[in-house]
């Protein structure tokens, strides 16, 4: 990497630095430089949503973001979702309602659902489907995922009440 430069990010609450040449995708930086293999990579053209992370709190496809662009940013990946070694309520709901089979799409699904539930604590099924329209799952047929997000919404509302 002749043209590599240091990129420092705050990932899941920890400051991390790695090397990136300009063409290195954020997805590959997180996986290969920082070892965060919870970030999944599938289509690498923005079509599937598996690589979604939160970049400064906003949804971002890490395969369509350069690592150098993220320098100085806060990144949240699925690896920071759990709490105190346990599952996050969204993860609990996915487990209980068959929101995954192979799990390849799951990191993107969880983070996309998290953002939806911040914006809309009690979404309709249509809103859930609309919000997840950029996340492809080839196992579940989506019914389990929609049920999981509905249940996650309920768990989070209970927690806040």
């Amino acid at each position, binding site marked *: 990497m002749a*043209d590599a430069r240091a990129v420092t990010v705050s990932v899941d609450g920890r400051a991390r630095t790695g090397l990136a*040449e*300009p*063409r290195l*995708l954020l997805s*590959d930086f997180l996986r290969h430089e920082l070892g965060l293999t919870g970030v999944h990579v599938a289509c*690498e*053209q*923005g079509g599937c*949503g598996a690589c*979604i992370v939160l*970049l400064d709190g*906003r*949804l*971002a*496809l890490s*395969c*369509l*973001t*350069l690592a*150098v*662009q993220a320098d100085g940013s806060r990144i949240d990946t699925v690896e920071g979702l759990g709490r105190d070694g346990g599952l996050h309520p969204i993860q609990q709901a996915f487990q209980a309602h068959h929101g995954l089979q192979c799990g390849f799409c799951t990191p*993107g699904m969880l983070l*996309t659902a998290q*953002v*939806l539930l911040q914006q809309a604590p009690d979404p309709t099924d249509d809103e859930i489907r*609309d*919000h997840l*329209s*950029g*996340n492809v799952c080839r196992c579940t047929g989506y019914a389990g995922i929609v049920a999981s997000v509905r249940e996650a919404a309920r768990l989070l509302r209970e927690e806040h009440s």
Partner: protein
Amino acid sequence: MKPARFDYVAVASTDEALDALADEAKVLAGGQSLVPLLNMRLARPSLLVDVNRVPGLDRVELDEAVRIGALARQADVLASPAAAAVPLLAAALRHVGHPATRSRGTIGGSLAHADPAAELPAILLALDGEVVARSRTGERKIAAEAFFTGPFTTALRADELLTDVVLPRPDSRPFGFAELSRRHGDFALAGAIVLLRPARLVLFGLGGAPERAPVAERALDEGAPAAEVAEAATRDLSPVDDVHADGAYRRRIAAVLVRRAIQEARSRG
């Protein structure tokens, strides 16, 4: 599926961007269209000029006109007063990609990319909008009609930066928006936009660039039945065949979409 090598500069002002722009350079804004092309190596620029940290390039202003900074994110525009002032813009933005692409993708980037099946170029044309392009020698305005010159091709010169998108006025005319795509948020196989009084009828996804249908617009203004207008708008189309749909199919669904868009617009008043 990894980009070829390129140089990268993150600029802090439009002047810095203009100094960096050159023939083999590409402007990087939201990256939602450019980075897939880089990943597939369909684009191999020697330099990327990243404008994401240019302050103010994402502002949205509303007075007699609606001015949207080129770097304004699609999701932010959807939540802005501009979307409330131009309901057609809001309706169309909901069809642009998905939440994760809209959160990064920009208005200016989508226009400069000029995908013939994209919604925003068609919207700019339907609303008589224009873009502002800056270079080191000055600034010029380019009307939508002159801006989109072919598939993925615009009137923007290599030394120019698209800085603003201007819609001439808040616009609450009755509108209809209809498109067909395999999956909500994907690029359209075909799409139609209708505005009433005065009429605008724009088709997209059917040729190299979005196009108005002037004969059909006159028929709309005269109150002609939707089926008649749809026939006039699509009679002379010869859409291309591609892997997504053949041309004959596209022409047939275009007529259906025009009818639906007219019915939707007329139901709004």
